[in-house]
């Protein structure tokens, strides 16, 4: 079992895609530097991520892409320099930032002992909003997992588990997406659909920060940042 049922479609359901605030968001990093065990991963990094942009972090293995994403998503406080969210220092607006952030790491964050629906329910509740079963079913349908809603995630393939994680993109209305290698384990149809979804999110005023080895085609909204 590799793929889901049919291609991974992007739902342009306005209710799902709508972002709740008029968008002029930006995440800024100033003179960002990170030293891990006496090795400078990067130094003096200035970075602006604004509404309507997809920023792709590039660099060879070990150049600190994942570390940078973890810093920019507020998981690591082990850096020097400043982070600003909508022009306010990150430390002051951390909760607001987190409420607008969707992070997808190397591991999908899907519990194998729970069904996709239960996984999404927990994820949704984490942000303080219970959501509804219909919302979650729609989000699963959007990633081609109709019919797998109640199967324990442990019985799904790696690609399908990844899709459960990707269903969060549709499920929640977060403005800033930070995605670490989101195309891993996804089949070709899924890759196309995900790429379209990223572009749509940027065009709707969201921002996307992504590392990937997959070549993105969205030249109009894409910016590259080179590390290492």
């Amino acid at each position, binding site marked *: 079992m590799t793929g889901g049922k049919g291609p991974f479609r992007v739902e342009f359901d306005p209710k799902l895609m709508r972002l709740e605030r008029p968008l002029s968001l930006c995440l800024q990093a100033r003179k960002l530097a990170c030293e891990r065990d006496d090795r400078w991963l990067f130094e003096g990094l200035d970075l602006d991520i604004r509404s309507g942009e997809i920023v792709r972090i590039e660099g060879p293995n070990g150049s600190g892409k994942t570390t940078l994403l973890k810093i920019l998503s507020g*998981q690591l406080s082990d850096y020097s320099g400043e982070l600003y969210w909508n022009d306010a220092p990150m430390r002051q607006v951390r909760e607001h930032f987190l409420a607008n952030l969707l*992070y997808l790491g190397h591991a999908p964050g899907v519990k194998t002992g729970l069904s996709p629906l*239960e996984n999404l*329910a927990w994820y949704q509740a984490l942000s*303080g909003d219970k959501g509804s079963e219909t919302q979650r079913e729609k989000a699963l349908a959007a990633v081609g997992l109709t019919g797998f809603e109640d199967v324990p995630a442990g019985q799904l393939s790696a690609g399908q588990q990844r899709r459960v994680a990707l269903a969060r993109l549709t499920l929640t209305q977060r403005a800033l997406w930070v995605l670490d290698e989101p195309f891993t384990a996804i089949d070709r149809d899924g890759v196309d659909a995900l790429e379209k979804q990223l572009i749509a999110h940027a065009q709707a005023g969201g921002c996307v920060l992504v590392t990937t080895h997959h070549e993105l085609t969205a030249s109009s909204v894409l910016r590259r940042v080179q590390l290492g």
Partner: protein
Amino acid sequence: MHAAPGGLLVAVSATFKRDLTLMLRRRGEVLNPLVFFALVITLFPIGISPDPELLASIAPGLLWVAALLAALLSLDSLFRGDYDDGSLEQLLLAPHPLAALGLAKVAVHWLLTGLPLALMAPVLGIMLALPAGSYAVLALSLAVGTASLSLIGAIGAALTVGLARGGVLLSLLVLPLYIPVLIFGAGAVQAAILGDGIAPHLAILGALFTVSLMLAPWAIAASLRISING
């Protein structure tokens, strides 16, 4: 989009429910500490002597030590699953205090480990010829005491979750911190046997629990943030 009022409660109860569901689906993991508890208690009469008088005199300590070890046994998996599958990152990035979400996980651990151990202890007490009149105190002291053990142990679990073989290290970190709880827990049962007042012991156990409840969640949160860095 600010987190809705009451959002914290939603997040905490969802995490509690999630962990409870997960644990109940893997019943073996819930039963293992209980079987371990019974097994260890079985070893003592075999290793020392079946003499009821001798057993009765050491029963409070044996029951407490065995229960403590059984509770320790299941601690290693408290955060490990979440660490391995990436859920821990999501937990850390929830727009709510990590301390509260961690507390929900600890509560599930106590509910499915400490509490069953406390309820089971009187049965094993019979097997060790524990003198009458101390059974209720045994269960009560274990119920309160294991709550502190879960809280303190979760700090160790959070500190070692990023390590490949953290299990033995976890015991080394946590066991010395367990000693006060052991002293007053076993002391309460001993006092009940001797007919002394048990109130001071239970009061101190309660105080230890209160202090753990106030401080441990912050230490757990800080430790998880360290462990996620690898």
